[in-house]
């Protein structure tokens, strides 16, 4: 749960008084560039501390960075490493005891449907497979929250569908926070959606509510003007923000 969270970079207010409860399942985070999405994700991942407010992990009210698995929008892998070693090493770095890393690796690879590539070199994987490997690496230590920043960007339709399947499976048993520009990702995956604009959470509701607000016409496209128009319409309605 994000409580009254604010964050400033120097004099710039990146987030202001954000209150947001994220529950089990997949929650989408939408917002135009500069809205504060990455800042909020960084705070959730523990990469920075809120200037004001707090992030509460569980029902006890403990205020700290939750155990997070984070897949940044841009990440790199070591091509010479084996797929299973990459995930096992990620598991170890994230605190899994060494003896348990092999099992953690196997489990995470199965979850992202990469188990058949376990002994392959990372360099032999396609773009979509690498993206799923990134998810597996973030998943290996079984985090409380899995944060995915624009995971489907740059993937072809087939790869995108496969990754969506994986994310949908993951969301059935844990909290997944999905930051995306693709409204289609949200409509297919997210139970709840938050929209950030100019550092403020301007919408927090269900995917159905969001769909209603934007309108069916704008939701039928994934790219180009229909998405942008729908998106701007939503922001204009909710926050009075104009681009």
């Amino acid at each position, binding site marked *: 749960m994000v409580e009254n969270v604010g964050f400033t970079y120097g004099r710039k207010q990146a987030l202001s008084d954000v209150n947001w409860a994220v529950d089990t399942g997949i929650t989408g985070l939408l917002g135009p560039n500069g809205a504060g999405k990455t800042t909020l994700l960084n705070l959730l991942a523990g990469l920075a501390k809120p200037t004001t407010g707090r992030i509460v992990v569980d029902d006890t009210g403990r205020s700290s960075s939750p155990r997070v698995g984070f897949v*940044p929008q841009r990440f790199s892998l070591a091509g010479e490493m084996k797929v299973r070693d990459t995930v096992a*090493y*990620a598991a170890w770095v*994230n605190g899994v005891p060494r003896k348990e890393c092999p099992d953690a690796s196997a489990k995470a690879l199965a979850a992202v449907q990469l188990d058949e590539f376990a002994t392959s070199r990372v360099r032999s994987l396609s773009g979509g497979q690498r993206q799923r490997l990134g998810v597996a690496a973030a998943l290996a230590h079984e985090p409380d929250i899995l944060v995915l920043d624009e995971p489907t960007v740059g993937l072809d339709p087939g790869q995108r569908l496969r990754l969506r399947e994986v994310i949908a499976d993951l969301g059935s048993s844990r909290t997944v926070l999905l930051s995306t520009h693709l409204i289609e990702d949200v409509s297919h995956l997210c139970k709840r959606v938050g929209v950030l604009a100019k550092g403020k959470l301007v919408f927090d509701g269900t995917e159905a509510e969001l769909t209603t607000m934007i309108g069916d016409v704008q939701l039928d496209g994934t790219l180009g003007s229909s998405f942008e128009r729908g998106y701007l319409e939503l922001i204009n309605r909710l926050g009075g923000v104009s681009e």
Partner: protein
Amino acid sequence: MSDRSPRTLWPLGPLPILVPSFLITVTVLMSTITMRGWEFQEWVRTSAEFHQQNAFVGPIAAAAATYWAGRLTPPQRVFAQPFAARNGHKVVILHLGTLMTAFLISYSVGFIPIVAATVRLAEYGGPAPLVIASGYLGVMAATAFGYFIGVIGRTALLAPVSFVLMFGVAVLGTGGDTFSALVPVLHITPSLGSVETVPFVSYRLAFLVLVIVSFVLTCVGIVKRQRSGTRFPPLRTLVALPLVVLLVIPPLVHPPALFAFEVDPPRVCLNEQGVEYCVHEGHRSQLSNIVSAVDPLIKIHGSVSDVRIVDEALRGAYVNFDDRMSVYAMSNFIWYPVDPFNSAESSIRLVSSHLSGLARCRQERKYDVSADLASDLEQWLRTSGSTYGENVFQGRTVEVVKTWIAQHKQAIETCSLTASQLP
């Protein structure tokens, strides 16, 4: 490794560890191959090799560590995110622990043959633990330095740069005493009769430990706090490095004495035909070789009396060329280098120079007829009359020259022979 065992200890696979480790072992083996052929060994030389071999091993270790860090620690790696539970000291300790362990083992393996030879053939003393430790610390410091370059550079492509930088550091020590307290590779190695001084070795050990600790702490700070969006690490992660600079200054201002010489070292002496031969206890086995090499010279000379031939290891100070050729040529005292890499035959030139008066000529910087005649006599003595090239004694019988030497002993010793005095 089975399919059930992913590698967390060396996630990059075995090659980035095994290749440099193999190179380290081969480098040490090849560099000590000549030593292993020596007729006798000295612990002081073998101990010093442990730091002298840092010259190439250090750059190899540094380059390998840069590669390792450049592949595993950049913050854009999905498995190197700053918030990860073990990112920081546990990651750095795992990486450097793996690298250092492999490199120190391979370094040790390379030394096994020469150490075995020294155990077998050294007649005096034992290994110098602090000196040997400085060699191992040198490898560790090179590894930590290379790792630091990889962490701060965030790329394995800097591995060649680390190699060159580390080699440059090693070369610093070969330039003279100035950097010797800081760099593991010395410009000279000690020999029997001398030891690396305790203050010198201690300072170097302390400095290397500080280098290792500083680089490790710096790397921990950077790995823990670096962000993929920013190129430079926070300044506070670099606070340990000025300590290294601070410890560089004192030995540069006051270079410590590198070597101390044994006081009253144990000796073994033998008198043979009026000539006293003395060697260091550690050269006991060479005494008979020296007598065998020098005795024919004494016999063919025929007029030698009251001469002492003494092992340089007994001198208690440096012996240089001038010492050998001048200072002691005035007395009947000859410093004799007993080096494992020199045959006794090659050292007898010092004795023949003394007996022919050539050493006296050199000491007085004479380059006239007297010096030419002394040079011819030196060759005649050394070759037992089998001279080569143009030599005024060529064709003379041993008895004729012996008699002539006895008659002109005074002129020979004072480098004042003239052509008219020739036999």
